[in-house]
């Protein structure tokens, strides 16, 4: 990594995780949730998104470039640590390890997911209810997506906790503990939204 920029890179990494990546995740899962109201509602939502002006620019600026930076710098951070939960089995140390593990799982999941949906669209396929229903006709994909969604939402929720510390918002132990509880609630609620939306595609 470039000399003298580690403070800025770490701050940018932390910021991008929430704005825009975290917000995009919430938006994406809520949009998927429309599938629980039927194929028609989901296809309508997809159509609405596809009609956003300059969609490709929006996608690159708010999704692809931030995720690419977050992923590359995240891998650098993840492989720098010397994990020691064996000797130091504290809750936060486990979260530290899991943040890095889920980061890598999430990256694999996202690469596959983008290949299967967005790149197929670029190659001429149409993204709609049937495409997802087709993907979920395979039980292996249901397992893969379940792990992927849980891992992504965990990484987001625990990353939210870290964000609050990295930016000096939760400073003392009490506020950090409350933030742990709140981000756990975020994890449960958002995981439910994600998995419930997925189940709507399983016919």
């Amino acid at each position, binding site marked *: 990594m470039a000399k003298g920029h*580690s*403070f800025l890179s770490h701050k940018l990494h932390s910021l991008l995780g929430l704005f825009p990546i975290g917000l995009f995740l919430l938006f994406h899962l809520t949009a998927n949730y429309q599938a629980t109201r039927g194929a028609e509602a989901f296809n309508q939502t997809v159509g609405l998104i596809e009609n956003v002006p300059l969609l490709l620019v929006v996608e690159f600026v708010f999704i692809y470039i931030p995720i690419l930076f977050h992923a590359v710098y995240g891998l650098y951070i993840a492989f720098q640590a010397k994990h020691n939960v064996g000797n130091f089995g504290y809750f936060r140390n486990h*979260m530290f390890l899991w943040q890095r593990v889920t980061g890598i799982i999430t990256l694999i999941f996202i690469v596959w997911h983008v290949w299967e949906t967005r790149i197929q669209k670029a190659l001429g396929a149409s993204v709609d209810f049937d495409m997802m229903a087709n993907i979920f006709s395979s039980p292996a994909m249901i397992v893969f997506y379940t792990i992927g969604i849980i891992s992504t939402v965990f990484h987001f929720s625990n990353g939210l906790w870290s964000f609050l510390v990295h930016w000096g918002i939760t400073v003392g132990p009490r506020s950090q503990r409350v933030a742990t509880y709140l981000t756990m609630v975020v994890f449960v609620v958002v995981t439910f939204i994600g998995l419930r939306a997925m189940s709507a595609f399983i016919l």
Partner: protein
Amino acid sequence: MAEKLIHLIITRQDSPDSTPYKEEFKIPYRPGMNVIGALMEIQRNPINAQGQKTSPVNWESNCLEEVCGACSMVINGKPRQACSALIDKLEQPIRLEPMSTFPVQRDLSIDRSRMFDALKRVKAWIPIDGTHDLGPGPRMPEVERQWAYELSKCMTCGVCLEACPNVNAKSEFIGPFAISQVRLFNQHPTGQMNKHERLEALMGDGGIGDCGNSQNCVQACPKGIPLTTSIAHMNKETTKHAVKKFFFS
């Protein structure tokens, strides 16, 4: 009655570059003994568990009351001071290892210079030398002195660096203690006059950005220093400083 023995398994290393190996010792128990006492017994009679004569185990210690930090080592998997590690409270066999996050010099003695370099880097002192008498400095409010005193208990023992997953051969991270020392000296009414210098040092490579919030440091610190609170506080201060510098000067 058979003599009660203490069983020790010590990770030894003959020189900074040689390969570490384990050697076992069985030494006579005395009431109230600590790990330093056990090492002194080996020094007096350097015979290992197989009954062979060996070189005495090398270690560092000084104050023997957990305020100097010199005798830090990994005892049964946890980094701590050997002087305050009482044999009666340890599970046997007692495993002693050097804190290998630091360069091992010999056996249990390590080189902690990276910590002193880190303190120099963040300017963990209060510059008061001048060419003439500057008079008394501003007073420090008592409520602040009370918590600042807690931070001043840091003895540069190295336990927080050993516990931190982000301090290792692949990273330049200066470690939790140095960040807490910046908070201490930036709080001091005279130290405050140079606070920007310390903040900028924290914002360099290997500085506060490298903290990954595993929070092992605060659990491991033998002096109970609120290291994670110091880190989060300095996160806020460095962010404010960066924003101010970018927009206003």
